[in-house]
């Protein structure tokens, strides 16, 4: 049993990856990566903005290709763990209508030393924007538009 505990510690905690339809409970995901061996937890919170190029955004709607989104998130976590020494990773993305100022995405990463979780957190949000199949529509008073992440377009260009 002691051996099990040591093994678990060395491998880190299981990744927690959620696609949710309601408000993101940030405390839950911070707790999911919290660990007595961790000295640092870095988080990134994506929040919805009220303006885009001076146009007032009334509402935002998210949709996802859920099973693939979870698989892509899992790949990102595996990549991140290969680059940095991490303990826990949690990622939650909200779908449906997200009111202005609320969280659309939350990432929490824990590590023994802070540089690992800080860099990994940045990497995970960059990768999420480049490859996780989730879409956002911005609704304005005079129309609506499906947004396109520059990070995805750049990578698509390299691919083709």
């Amino acid at each position, binding site marked *: 049993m002691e051996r099990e505990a040591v093994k678990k510690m060395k491998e880190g905690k299981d990744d927690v990856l959620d696609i949710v339809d309601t408000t993101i409970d940030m405390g839950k995901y911070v707790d999911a990566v919290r660990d007595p061996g961790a000295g640092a937890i870095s988080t990134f919170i*994506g929040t919805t903005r009220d303006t885009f190029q001076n146009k007032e955004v009334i509402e935002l709607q*998210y*949709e*996802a*290709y859920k*099973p*693939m*989104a979870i*698989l892509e998130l899992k790949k990102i976590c595996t990549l991140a763990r290969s680059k940095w020494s991490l303990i826990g990773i949690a990622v939650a*993305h909200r779908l449906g209508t997200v009111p202005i100022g609320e969280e*659309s*995405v939350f990432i929490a990463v824990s590590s023994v030393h802070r540089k690992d979780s800080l860099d990994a957190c940045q990497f995970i*949000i960059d990768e*999420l*924007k480049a*490859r*996780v*199949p*989730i*879409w*956002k*529509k911005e609704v304005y008073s005079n129309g609506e538009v*499906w*947004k*396109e*992440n520059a990070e*995805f*377009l750049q990578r*698509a260009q390299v*691919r*083709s």
Partner: protein
Amino acid sequence: EENKVKVKVLLFARARELVGGSEFDLAVKEGATTADCVAELTTRFAALEVMRDSIVVALNFDYVTDPVKVKDGDELAIIPPISGG
């Protein structure tokens, strides 16, 4: 009648809105590739033409770039430029 392969096609975001549907079955000739499926789709749904250059596809939950032969029961997703985060 020649052998057909039935692929499940998923459409998201702008592609879904242009086509007016999120999921349907596509029957293609045996040996057809993901590229053939996309060509077939854009023929069937002319509305998709406007975004043809920006479409990326995923086969069974993995992005594919070079054409890959599809099998019966495969899931082919049309991935318009993403905007998560």
